[in-house]
């Protein structure tokens, strides 16, 4: 692993740690998914990839705090699967987290787009 790749991997871990709850809640928005589906969905994107060992305990915690509910469903002769969906409390939490996220992105973008000496002029 080159130095740059290592730096990126570290940043990925750090950023994901902070955004994981938001990501999982967002992935369950308007959907009911079981663990494997949810994992497959998150692994489609480069920055939201996670492991089974991270996802399942997180789902357990979100369920305990009441943000999501779980239900075992068996269709036909398939294996029973545990499906997750957002509760009203989870939907509310998602809206708080996502509002903050959406505020944070343009703030950081603004800083990135405005290098230079004048800190004063920053706040227009």
């Amino acid at each position, binding site marked *: 692993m080159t130095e740059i790749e290592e730096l990126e991997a570290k940043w990925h871990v750090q950023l994901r740690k902070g955004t994981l709850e938001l990501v999982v809640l967002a992935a369950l928005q308007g959907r009911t998914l079981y*663990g*494997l589906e949810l994992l497959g969905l998150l692994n489609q994107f480069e920055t939201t990839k996670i*492991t089974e060992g991270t996802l399942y*305990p997180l789902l357990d*915690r979100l369920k305990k705090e009441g943000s999501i509910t779980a239900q075992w469903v068996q269709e036909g002769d398939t*294996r*029973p*699967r545990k499906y997750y969906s957002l509760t009203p409390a989870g939907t509310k939490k998602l809206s708080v987290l996502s509002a903050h996220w959406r505020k944070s992105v343009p703030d950081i973008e603004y800083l990135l787009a405005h290098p230079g000496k004048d800190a004063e002029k920053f706040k227009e």
Partner: protein
Amino acid sequence: MSDRERINTYLQTLNRYLSRLPAEDANEVIREIESHIYDAIDLAEAKGEKLEVSELLKGFGPPRTLAEKYTNHMLDGTPPPSGFSAITSIKHKVTKGMYWSTLLLGYGSGFALILLAFMKLLSPETVGIWTSPGGESVIVGTLDAPAEQGDDLLGLWLVPTALILGSLITRFTYSLLRILKRIAG
């Protein structure tokens, strides 16, 4: 080891580390992970691929680490004392008899020493620690005729010494009993 054996071993180990959870919760965790593993295998098969089970299990991480992520919330605010698991394993060997004998012996000797200190204050002449005339043994307690004995070893120093020693033993007994009660309870 076949895939099925490897999966079973993993789940059994995980189950053991989840023992701190209520049985119902632990079962639920195991059931879900088992369902995930076999679903993933089926899914790969449907695509005509062969899923590497050891790779999949690596995604879940070592059973112990995974179990800790489920049980950590139970320890919030009340971390177990170090050596917790060792205590649990001897738990059933601690009998009520041990509790009561500790109580009697500990409090008995603690209070006796404190009592001795007060008695020395009330009656300095007849209470004390003496060497016997031959110097071969030590007598602790009250005597009718202390003059026949050897030297009073501590004199009035017996009062603070016995008080401190008695309090320490009492305090120690109290802590010990609390631990015993928790283990046996």
